[in-house]
């Protein structure tokens, strides 16, 4: 028996097939299928992708391709969902690697999984000036700011940023998560961060806990 279009979409994302995901999403719209149901299936596929990555069954490029397939499908499906039925985004999540640090592979994985989980991710990239993080807190009003640092000489930027938030009277307006190779739970506590993302899956889990 032929699989439903929703299951086919799930499979296309699991296969990291951007073209197939796009075509199936278009077909669903053509036949006036349930776009919300389709998007839900797409999210399930990305969750499964995240689990497989964590288990070492697939690698980073496959996560990126699956995310591309999901984004392509979402771009077609979302406009077809009535506004009142659209699953509310969980809030904005501003993320970046702190200034002076050019490592961003881990941060990239976190951003991808957060987006798949339903956050509106604003990825500032790497070597991000702390003033830009602060500016985004003011203009985007995110629920969480995530700062990544791989080295001890760059992770001090996470501490400085929290101090900047306090100075501007913004500390209680946003949750701060820190992560990256140099960081530990002890460091996060020491600098007054709200959470420490030990790895990508735990960063996503803690993000959910922070917004409760």
């Amino acid at each position, binding site marked *: 028996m032929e699989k439903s279009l929703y299951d086919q979409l799930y499979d296309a994302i699991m296969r990291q097939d951007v073209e197939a995901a796009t075509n199936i999403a278009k077909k669903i719209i053509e036949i006036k299928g349930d776009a919300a149901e389709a998007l839900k299936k797409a999210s399930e596929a990305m969750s499964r992708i995240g689990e497989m*990555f964590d288990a070492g069954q697939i*690698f980073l*490029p496959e996560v990126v391709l699956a995310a591309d397939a999901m984004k392509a499908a979402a771009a077609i499906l979302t406009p077809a969902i009535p506004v009142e039925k659209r699953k509310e985004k969980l809030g904005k999540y501003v993320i970046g690697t702190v200034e*002076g640090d050019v490592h961003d592979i881990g941060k990239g994985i976190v951003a991808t999984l957060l987006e798949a989980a339903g956050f509106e991710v604003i990825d500032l990239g790497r070597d991000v000036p702390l003033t830009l993080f602060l500016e985004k807190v003011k203009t985007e009003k995110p629920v969480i700011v995530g700062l990544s640092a791989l080295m001890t000489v760059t992770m001090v930027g996470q501490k400085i940023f929290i101090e900047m938030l306090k100075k501007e009277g913004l500390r209680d307006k946003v949750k701060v998560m820190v992560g990256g190779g140099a960081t530990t739970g002890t460091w996060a506590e020491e600098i007054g961060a709200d959470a420490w993302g030990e790895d990508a899956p735990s960063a996503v889990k803690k993000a959910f806990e922070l917004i409760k």
Partner: protein
Amino acid sequence: MRLDFFWDLWERSKTGEEITEKEFDMKLFKKTMELKKDFGINFNLNSPVLTDRTMAKDLYQAGLTLFLELGTYCRDTGRILKITEEELKECLKRVPYKIELGDGNERITVGGNPLEGKKHVVIAGGPCACPVSEDLFVEIMYSYAKEDGVKAIYPGLLTTFKGKNIQTRTLLEIAAAREEASLTRKALIKAGRPGMPIIGIVHPSAEASNFADGKDGLRPTDLHEIDPLNELKVDVETFKRIYYCIRNDYFITSMVCPILGGFAGGPEGTAMVAVAEALQGFTLINAHVFSFGITHINTRSGTDRASLWASGAALLALKNVLPAPVGSLIWAAAGPCTDIICYEIMAKTIVDTVCGADLIMSAGSTGGKLTNHYTGMEARMAYLTSKASVGMTLEYANDVIKELLKLYEEKLLRGNLPRSKSFNECYTSDGFPSREYVEIWDECKKILVKFGIENIS
């Protein structure tokens, strides 16, 4: 000649094919998948040490093809710079078969190691750029310097300078870089080995790294480290470091940490990338020694089965073809005074020694996360294991590694590691390991005695 070629490559980084970084990463991944198929490079789960010597030769060809066809990506210009096969051959002709580092009684030769561990490997001991506090820096470095088996030293990085957190691109980072070299020099003097060569010192800013040089810092007889970015990437800071080292005629090691599970893909792709990055090292980076430490994206160590295979395979591929010296970094997940770190170091050292490494750096432990969790014992264990591995065949090493993996692999994969001890918890201030640590090592090395490796005292 070197400078002319350097400026030529600098120009190419500004005029080469324009591409986004994401496109380059995906191109890399797709190419490694293609080459894996074309050259028949396959990781066998039941064989953590590559014993197929033909596959090692094919792996070199795959890495060479990857390097020549893909090139190196310059992040700051968003362009690819490529080197021709002819230029590569010219560069490789210039790379020495071996180099001499250090001064006086501590002068050493690095290189010239034939395959299958027939000759002893140089052990560089140290925290390998992991975090060390100001108050313990000299003591910790001293614990390595006083080990007879340690012939070079790889310092840690200070967590503070004069009690203040160090931020990159500030005066404090510059001061810290010099202090790291200077305090290491103090530790060497304390150990009565002032001429021992130092490897390093790398900070995010080229300015700070370069400031580590001086009479009380890094010297021309030391090995200056330049770290290109993952994978097959450079930036303007990399070019600054290369230029600085060429102008000063310093010995250079190009150090990379390919990520298994990252854009290089699985073990086959990662081994290929390591080979390609070696060729990048001996050309663009002007390295005298290529060093690498493959790290698994999930375990954050280089001692899982797949990473061991990839490291060994890349070493075999390189040493089969290139005369140039190759170094290997041990990056362990566990920390001092645990059985797991003993097994991790034994496993990685055996693979490195038997597959032809000229230099082994031991060790970055706790995945580089914890401050002061680094001791001279990690270097001692590497030295003794390496000495005992001399003459071992690939097939024999494979059997030994399979047994070692049974003792730690599951805990490593589950992240279920025993509590690591800091330097103060397992070492005396005059540089001796605690009885507990020595007993743990004595117990752990018994696994090697089972294989008839008895000379590991």
